[in-house]
């Protein structure tokens, strides 16, 4: 265990030597090594810098978590005397050049800098993408080495825990959380302080603090980024929660699909124990709190709180009816609080800076910031953290850099399989919990997928239903059978067999599933259908009445034709057609036999003259 004086010494030392005060000629090279960076090839870049800098006392190379701009990975930041230079789309060769010219020669290699809207940016902080953000949950991601507890300490790490242990009563902590207005970031938006106060009020021989790191929404990776980039923030917050409610044991339920996160969490837990921030007699007091990791095994329903706890108990992760709520009877029948990773990532900052600081950000009923994972048809895919109340337009156009290839925005999907689509008419909606629900979507955990005119909304609804059908645990009938019936109706419509009555049936069935399902999965499963019906009813009708897919996605509704003006009769399409549906003589325009055509689009992909169109 370390004394608080020793911790302060570490903090001063790291700040002086590693962070802000490094002198000119002293370099710190940061390589983004989160899953996204590694996937893009950051490991060889890291190795190249390590090799080049070996023996150079003026150049320290460190791994950091996700910096946030996924499509520019691998990203390297070079820091000198507090000044940052961001290099993007790096490889080992480029790394060698940066080392030679920048680290040794003192010259920035402008060729590898980020170019935004035609303007070269010296660092990520100069971009519009970054300037419009406010980073609280992600404050350390991309800045500290997640496997080094000293760097976390240097950024005020564990100071909140120290404050809680030395200055605050359990009630003070809960009051601060209540006053901050922090709401659960996992999607439902329940006030965090209230959850804690319920569990604190229940007397029981044992209580638990759990973390939901089972980030199952397809297209969402906010939690992964915090786990990989700043794992101590989660441990500190859970320990504070343990103190507040009187728990001695915590569990982090994390997806097995996140091996890097699991590895870094394990390292962080061992370091925290060594320093006396976790385990028996924390910071020399009689407060004891331990954290265990439980791996999920690929079941979306385990993101639901009662199902998650059943899964930690080692059983099939089926939900159970509430009440009793987990704050009364949760894990192993004991009072339990369960919060999401991003919720916890705000806790230490709220304790340190006070509830007023936090509640000054955001809208009336949604305080603070929200992290979104931008994906789909958008230029800047990546992680962004913005104050609540930022408009969707700002997120998509200014931060996200708009839609690629000059295409038009059609909708943004939030809340994953439980959420809905936000169409262009609501582009100026201020994003917060209540506004999104009012327009038929939901905040969800933070996935924000942008769709353009090439995406068919009926197909998207079908895609989400396919997901929920697969992930329904089968315990209750409305969800198990209802979602399958919904899917079958959508399948019927997208294959051109739909009738107008099907729309009424979809709506009636959706209402029934919402009202009668046992848990959140079933209750929200019809949302993608309802919201697409609300805003894109014309697309459903086009599929049913005109037998047309406006976005040209649903194959059974497409017709392929060859333009005789453009066709030169090269025979390539005919030779590649798997159905022998194309006929024609050499150097004469070819024709597709629609009776035989299987609509595989191979001909279109093979035509070098753009003569084949689908409609």
């Amino acid at each position, binding site marked *: 265990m370390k004394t608080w004086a020793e911790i302060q010494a570490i903090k001063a030392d790291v700040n002086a030597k590693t962070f802000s005060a490094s002198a000119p000629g002293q370099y710190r090279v940061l390589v983004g090594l989160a*899953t*996204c960076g*590694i*996937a*893009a090839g950051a490991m060889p870049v890291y190795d190249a810098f390590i090799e080049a800098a070996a023996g150079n006392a003026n150049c320290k190379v460190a791994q950091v978590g996700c910096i946030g*701009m*996924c*499509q520019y*990975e691998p990203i390297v930041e070079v820091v000198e005397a507090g000044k940052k230079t961001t290099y993007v789309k790096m490889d080992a060769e480029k790394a060698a050049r940066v080392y030679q010219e920048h680290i040794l020669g003192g010259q920035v290699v402008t060729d590898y800098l980020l170019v935004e809207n035609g303007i070269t940016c010296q660092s990520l902080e100069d971009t519009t993408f970054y300037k419009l953000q406010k980073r609280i949950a992600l404050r350390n991601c991309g800045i500290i080495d997640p496997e080094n507890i000293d760097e976390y300490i240097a950024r005020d790490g564990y100071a909140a825990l120290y404050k809680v242990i030395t200055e605050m009563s359990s009630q003070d902590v809960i009051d601060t959380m209540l006053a901050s207005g922090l709401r659960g970031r996992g999607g439902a938006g329940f006030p965090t302080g209230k959850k804690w106060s319920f569990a604190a009020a229940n007397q029981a021989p044992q209580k638990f603090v759990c973390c939901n790191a089972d*980030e*199952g*929404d*397809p*297209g*969402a*990776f906010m939690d*992964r980024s915090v786990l990989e980039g700043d794992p101590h923030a989660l441990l500190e917050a859970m320990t504070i929660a343990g103190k507040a409610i009187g728990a001695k044991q915590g569990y982090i339920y994390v997806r*097995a*699909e*996140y*091996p890097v996160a699991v590895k870094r969490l394990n390292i962080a837990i061992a370091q925290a124990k060594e320093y006396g921030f976790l385990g028996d007699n924390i910071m020399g007091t009689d407060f004891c709190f331990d954290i265990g990791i*439980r*791996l*999920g*095994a*690929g*079941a*979306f329903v385990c993101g639901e709180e009662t199902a998650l706890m059943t*899964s*930690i*108990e*080692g*059983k*099939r*992760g*089926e939900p159970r009816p509430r009440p009793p709520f987990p704050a009364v009877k949760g894990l*192993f029948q004991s009072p339990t609080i369960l919060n999401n990773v991003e919720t916890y990532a705000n806790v230490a900052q709220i304790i340190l800076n006070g509830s007023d600081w936090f509640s000054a950000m955001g809208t009336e009923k949604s305080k603070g910031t929200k992290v979104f*994972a931008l*994906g*789909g*048809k958008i230029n800047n*895919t*990546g992680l962004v953290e913005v104050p609540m109340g930022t408009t969707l337009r700002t997120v998509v156009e200014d931060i996200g850099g708009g839609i690629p290839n000059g295409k038009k925005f059609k909708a943004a*999907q939030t809340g*994953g399989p439980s959420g809905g689509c936000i169409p262009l008419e609501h582009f100026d909606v201020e994003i917060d919990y209540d506004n999104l629900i009012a327009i038929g979507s939901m905040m969800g955990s933070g*996935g924000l*997928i942008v*769709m353009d005119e090439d*995406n068919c909304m009926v197909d*998207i609804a079908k*895609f*989400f239903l396919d997901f929920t059908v*697969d992930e329904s*645990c089968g315990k209750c009938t409305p969800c198990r059978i209802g979602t399958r019936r919904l899917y079958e109706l959508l399948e019927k419509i997208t294959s051109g067999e739909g009738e107008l009555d099907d729309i009424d049936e979809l709506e009636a069935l959706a209402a029934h599933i919402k009202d009668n399902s046992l848990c959140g999965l079933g209750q929200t499963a019809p949302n993608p259908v309802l919201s697409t019906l609300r805003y894109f009813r014309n697309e459903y009708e086009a599929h049913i009445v005109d037998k047309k897919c406006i976005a040209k996605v649903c194959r059974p509704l497409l017709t392929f034709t060859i333009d005789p003006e453009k066709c030169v009769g090269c025979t390539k399409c005919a030779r590649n057609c798997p159905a022998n549906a194309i006929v024609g003589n050499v150097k004469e325009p070819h024709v597709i036999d629609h009776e035989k055509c299987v609509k595989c689009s191979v001909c279109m*992909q093979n035509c070098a003259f753009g003569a084949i169109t689908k409609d």
Partner: protein
Amino acid sequence: MKKKMSSIPFAGTPEQEAKLDAYIAEHKSEEGCLMPIMQEAQAIYGYLPQEVQIHIAEKLGIPAEEVYGVATFYSMFNLSPKGKYQFSVCLGTACYVKGSREVLDKLCEILEIEPGECTPDGLFSIEACRCVGACGLAPVMMVNGSDVYGRLKAADVADIIEKYREYEKEEAEYENMG
């Protein structure tokens, strides 16, 4: 998700069993130990054959159907073996809207198997997987959970498969030389 129980005969070794038994002995007394034990068993054997499920049940003193119930509930537990090269195509939303379905279809077409199946020579298996969180590189495919291929097009698939066939050939040549 429906799971197929493997018809391939079980070929566990005494070493594997000893390793599993040591793990069970260490964790048996912990509350909620069944899933971690099954995860370890899958790490040892590569999948969860019926024989192993029954073995775990006996060691923990619980009914075998409880183990089977958990094994079939979670998508990451495999009841049949995987190919030497496991292709996982991400069908998360971000990948889907960027065309990962076409990548998956192409893979199935070339290898002549369906997702969840293994080629008869035991070399390749395909699965459609949940979001791997690399949405910035969509569409994404992973091979054996470690080699990541991003920004894929259906047309890239043939070359990737060929790359692993080449590995196989090289490996076979080495063995012949040795």
